[in-house]
């Protein structure tokens, strides 16, 4: 079967990055997934080069590790942790939906129409609640609140 010629622009521009659109909650998760993914990739690139300092010996390593204990870097480490937790759990949602879980069974298109996005929403909410709990738990550890 021949495909109709696509006359629309294929690029979507910056608007799709910043707005949830008709998908609402999941639309904003999509935006955050991209922002957190880009941040994690940048961190990974830095991480590869910084941890290479172990080749320079114990003294260099210990000096570098001591430098990571500054409040600013501890906070940035926490942001990396938050990005990881969000990206991981939202990614679990995306894989489940990709494989056809939690999207409901096919139904007759009777009015009022119910979109698949509404059937997926409980999964998104449950995973984001878990994300919030893990981010709070990590905050107690990573932001060095007094441990018991």
């Amino acid at each position, binding site marked *: 079967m021949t495909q109709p010629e696509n006359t629309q*622009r*294929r*690029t*979507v*521009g910056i608007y*799709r990055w910043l707005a949830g659109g008709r998908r609402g909650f999941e639309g904003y998760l999509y935006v955050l997934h*991209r922002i957190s*993914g*880009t941040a*994690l*990739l940048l961190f*990974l*690139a830095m991480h*590869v*080069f910084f*941890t*290479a300092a*172990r*080749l*320079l*010996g*114990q003294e260099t*390593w*210990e000096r570098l*590790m001591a430098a990571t204990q500054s409040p600013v870097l501890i906070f940035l*480490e926490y942001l990396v*942790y938050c990005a*990881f937790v969000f990206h*991981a759990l939202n*990614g*679990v949602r995306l*894989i489940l939906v*990709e494989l056809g879980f939690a999207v409901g069974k096919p139904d007759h298109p009777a009015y009022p129409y119910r979109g698949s996005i509404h059937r997926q929403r409980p999964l998104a909410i449950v995973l984001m609640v878990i994300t919030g709990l893990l981010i709070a*738990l*990590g905050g*107690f*550890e*990573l932001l060095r609140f007094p*441990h*018991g």
Partner: protein
Amino acid sequence: MRETAYWLINIACAIVILVLLGVHMGVMHLDAILARLVGTVPEPLAWENMVNRGKSTTQVVLYIVLLGTALFHGFYGLRTMLLEFFSSDRAARVITAGCVTAGGVLFVTGTAVTVVFALNGAG
């Protein structure tokens, strides 16, 4: 067809990363919480513990697997985003080549450091 294969590899990488990075985060960054659950855990950033980890064959293999899967997943995602902005065939070739090169440089660097450290220790 090739893009479908990339997509499937990307999903497979995501699952591997979820497990390995989950363990990495737990051990390296949430050690105080881990200590509450399992008793005492070694200080992850201390030089001696880092050397012991770096010399373990299992750890070296897992580090390289995590590095490779994370780089593929990361640069595949970055490429997808960039292709939404620049979709001409020429731009697509440049973006793909850039992502492969950057990912390759990081993979070779990370792997070389890990293997050299495992074999020789600090220089």
